C-alpha cells in the first residue's frame, strides 16, 4: 500500500496549483465566464504548455500519463480553482476516443490536442436520452460510399469551440440497443450541421446540435461500424473519474472557504465558528471529505481493471461524491449566510460547479441504481 503521489504526479499537481492560484483568481475567472467564448484561449494554451493535456494521455498516445491517478490529479486541481475550460470534452472524451479507436489519420490529431491547438466535443446525449448511454436515435445511413447523419444532440459541451465533433449515431438496432452505435468524426462546419449555443449555469458553453442530412465519408467513422458503445463506455469511465475528482477539488475549496469564514466572520461579538451548532456541522463536512477523498482514490485506482469491476467502483464513487457534494455545497452556503449567495463570491461559483457535475453522465440516483445492478451481476 502506498497512498503517495508519484514524483511526476506530485510535480504536476504543484505546477498546476501554482499556475492556477497565480493566474486564475476569482475575478479573472468570472471575467472568463462572462466572455463570449466562455473560456480563455490564453489559459488553455498555457496549461497545454505546462503539460496538463499531455498528462491525460498515455506515452503510447503521445502523452506522459493517462492513468486513473493522472486524471484524478489534474481534475482535482482544476476543480479546486473552479476552472471552466473544457479539458473533459476536448481531452478526455474527444482526444480519448481518437486515441483509443481512431484510424492513423484520426490518431494524428491527438498530438494537436495535446499541444492545445485543437478542440473537440462529444455529441452523444440526445433530448430524450437523459443518462441512458445506449439510447441513440440519431441515424447513420449509407449513401453510396458516404454516410448520412440525421438527428439531434443535447447539451453538447464545447460544441461551438470544437474543430471536430464526435457524433454517435445508430447504424442498426433499435433506440436503446448497445449494438449498432457508431461514432463519426464530423467537422464543425459540415453542411447540415447547425447549433444553438448557450452559456451554462456553472460556466463554460454548450449547444443543441442538429444534424440534418450531414454527409461524411466512410473514413470519418471511428473504429468499427456498430461497435462504438464499448469504447464510448471506456472514455465515459475516464470522464466519471475526472468529474468525481473535479467535484472533490471544488469541495476542498468550499470547505476551506467555509473554515476561513467561520474563523473570521463575527456576529454577537465572536467568530461564528465558535457556535457549536456550526462547529459540529463543519466537522461533519471534514468527516465526509475523508470519505470523498477515498472514493475518488477508489475510482481512479480501478480505472485500469476489467470493465465490470471498474464500472461498479465508478458508480459507487459518483454516488458518494454526489451525496457529499450536495451536502458540502449546501452547508457551505448556509454557514456563510447571505454573502455566499452573491455571484462574485468564490463559493457561489464553486458550489455551482460541484452541483452541476451531478448532471453529467449520471446523477447520484443513476449511479446508485447502476451500483446495485452491477453488484448483483
Amino acid at each position, binding site marked *: 500500500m502506498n497512498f503517495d503521489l508519484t514524483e511526476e504526479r506530485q510535480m504536476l499537481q504543484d505546477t498546476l496549483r501554482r499556475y492556477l492560484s497565480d493566474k486564475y483568481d476569482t475575478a479573472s475567472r468570472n471575467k472568463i465566464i462572462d466572455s463570449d467564448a466562455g473560456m480563455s484561449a490564453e489559459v488553455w494554451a498555457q496549461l497545454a504548455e505546462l503539460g496538463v493535456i499531455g498528462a491525460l494521455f498515455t506515452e503510447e498516445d503521445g502523452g506522459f500519463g493517462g492513468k486513473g491517478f493522472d486524471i484524478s490529479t489534474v481534475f482535482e486541481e482544476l476543480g479546486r480553482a473552479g476552472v471552466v475550460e473544457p479539458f473533459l470534452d476536448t481531452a478526455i472524451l474527444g482526444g480519448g476516443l481518437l486515441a483509443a479507436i481512431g484510424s492513423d489519420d484520426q490518431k494524428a490529431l491527438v498530438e494537436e490536442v495535446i499541444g492545445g491547438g485543437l478542440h473537440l466535443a462529444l455529441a452523444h446525449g440526445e433530448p430524450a436520452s437523459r443518462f441512458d448511454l445506449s439510447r441513440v436515435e440519431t441515424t447513420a445511413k449509407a449513401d453510396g460510399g458516404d454516410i448520412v447523419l440525421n438527428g439531434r444532440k443535447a447539451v453538447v459541451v464545447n460544441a461551438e469551440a470544437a474543430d471536430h465533433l464526435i457524433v454517435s449515431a445508430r447504424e442498426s438496432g433499435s433506440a436503446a440497443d448497445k449494438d449498432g452505435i457508431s461514432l463519426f468524426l464530423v467537422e464543425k462546419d459540415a453542411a447540415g450541421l447547425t447549433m444553438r449555443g448557450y452559456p451554462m449555469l456553472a460556466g463554460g458553453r454548450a449547444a443543441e446540435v442538429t444534424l440534418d442530412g450531414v454527409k461524411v465519408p466512410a473514413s470519418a467513422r471511428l473504429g468499427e461500424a456498430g461497435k462504438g458503445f464499448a469504447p464510448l463506455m471506456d472514455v465515459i469511465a475516464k470522464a466519471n473519474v475526472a468529474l468525481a475528482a473535479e467535484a472533490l477539488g471544488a469541495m476542498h475549496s468550499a470547505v476551506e472557504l467555509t473554515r476561513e469564514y467561520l474563523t473570521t466572520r463575527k*456576529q454577537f461579538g465572536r467568530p461564528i465558528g465558535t457556535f457549536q451548532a456550526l462547529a459540529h456541522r463543519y466537522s461533519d463536512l471534514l468527516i465526509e471529505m475523508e470519505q470523498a477523498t477515498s472514493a475518488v482514490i477508489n475510482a481512479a485506482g480501478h480505472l485500469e481493471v476489467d470493465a465490470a469491476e471498474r464500472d461498479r467502483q465508478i458508480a459507487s464513487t459518483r454516488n458518494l461524491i454526489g451525496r457529499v457534494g450536495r451536502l458540502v455545497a449546501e452547508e457551505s452556503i448556509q454557514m456563510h449566510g447571505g454573502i455566499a449567495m452573491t455571484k462574485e463570491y468564490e463559493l457561489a461559483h464553486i458550489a455551482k460547479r460541484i452541483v452541476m457535475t451531478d448532471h453529467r453522465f449520471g446523477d447520484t440516483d443513476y449511479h*446508485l441504481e447502476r451500483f446495485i445492478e452491477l453488484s448483483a451481476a
Partner: protein
Amino acid sequence: MDLNYTAEEVAFREEVREFLKEKLPKELSAKVKARKHLSKDDMERWHAILNEKGWLAPNWPKEFGGAEWNAVQKHIFEEETARAGSPRIVPFGLSMLAPVLQKFGSKEQQDYYLPRILNGDDWWCQGYSEPGAGSDLASLKTRAVREGDHYIVNGQKTWTTLGQYANMIFCLVRTDTEVKQQEGISFLLIDMNTPGIEVRPIILLDGVHEVNEVFFDNVKVPVENLVGEENKGWTYAKYLLTHERTNIAGVGYSQAGLESVKRIARAESANGKPLIENPYFAARLAQVEIDLMAMATSNMRIISKAAAGQAPGVESSMLKVKGTIIRQELNDLARRAVGPYAMPFPSESVEGDNDPIGPDYAAPVSAAYFNNRKLSIFGGSNEIQRGIIAKVKMGG
C-alpha cells in the same frame, strides 16, 4: 378534531377560487408557473387588482382599509393564490411596515402612508441588515444624528430586496451609541430620492438582480419620519418580525412546487419509462410529499390556535425551519428531474420570450434551486430559529 374546513370556510375558499379564475391575468399566472421573472409592472398590476377587490391587505384592520381576515381565511387565500400561480405580493410595505405604523406610527404617518401603500404609490424596501449586522441585527452601525429638525444619516444597508424599484426605505438606525445596543436603535422612514443615497446592485448566484446595497452619505431625514419614539426602534422591529413570520411555512408554495415536480417527472423519461415511475426518484418524491402532508396539518393546527386568539410562539420558528427544508428539497428534486438540461444558464429563456433550451419546464429549475438557498438564510436563519426554539423551551 375535524380535519375539514367549516361550511363558511369552504364558501370562502370557493369565493377566492372564483375570484382568481376571473381576475388573475393568464399572462401573469403563466409567467409565475414557468418561473419567469416578473417585471415591476407585473407585480404592480396584481397589486392593483387585489386592491380593487379589497383583498390586498388581509392582515390589516378594517379601519385602515384591510380585509381583517382571521388566520384560517388568510391561510386559505395564501394556499389558493399560490396554487393558481398568482404573483407574490411584495411584502415590505403591506405586511412589514404597515403593522408597525398601525401600532406605533403617528396619526399623520398613518393617514399619509397607509393609503399610499394600498394604492401602490410607494414601493417600500426593508433596510435592516448591514454588512456587519446580519443575524446579530442589534449590532447595526448606520448612524442617525439629530440636527435641528432633521436626522443626518450615514452608513450602509445591504441585501435590500428589490431596492432598485423602491422609492421609500424603512431603516433601523443607531441614534444612541452610549447605551446597550438594543436601546440605541430608532426606526426611520427614508425617501430614496434624498441626496446622498446610492443604490448598488448585488447580483445573486443565479445571475439575478434581486438585492442591493444602499449607501447613506449625510442623508437629511425630517424628524417627522421617525416612527414612535427615538431609541425604541428595536421593539418595533421585533414586532415587525412577528409579522414577517406569518405564512412562514409556505405550504401553498410547497404544494405548487410538488405539483410542478410531478409534472416534470411525468414528462421526463429514464430508461424508456416516465421518471415518475423510477423507484429511486419516486421514493425521494414520496418522502417529501409525506413530510408536506404532515406539515400542512401542523400549519393548520397552529393557525387554528392563532384564529382562536392565541399568539403562536416557537411554533412559527418550527414552521419556518420545516417549511424551508421542504421547499428546498422540492427545488432539489426539480433540478434532478431535468437531468442534463439542468446545465444551461437560464437567463435567456427565463427573462425573455426566447424559445427555451430543452423542455420549457427545465429552464428555471437550477436557478431556483440555487436562489432558494436564501430561504434558510433570511427572515431569521434556520440556525437562529433553532436557537430560539431551544432557548424558549429550556427557559434560557
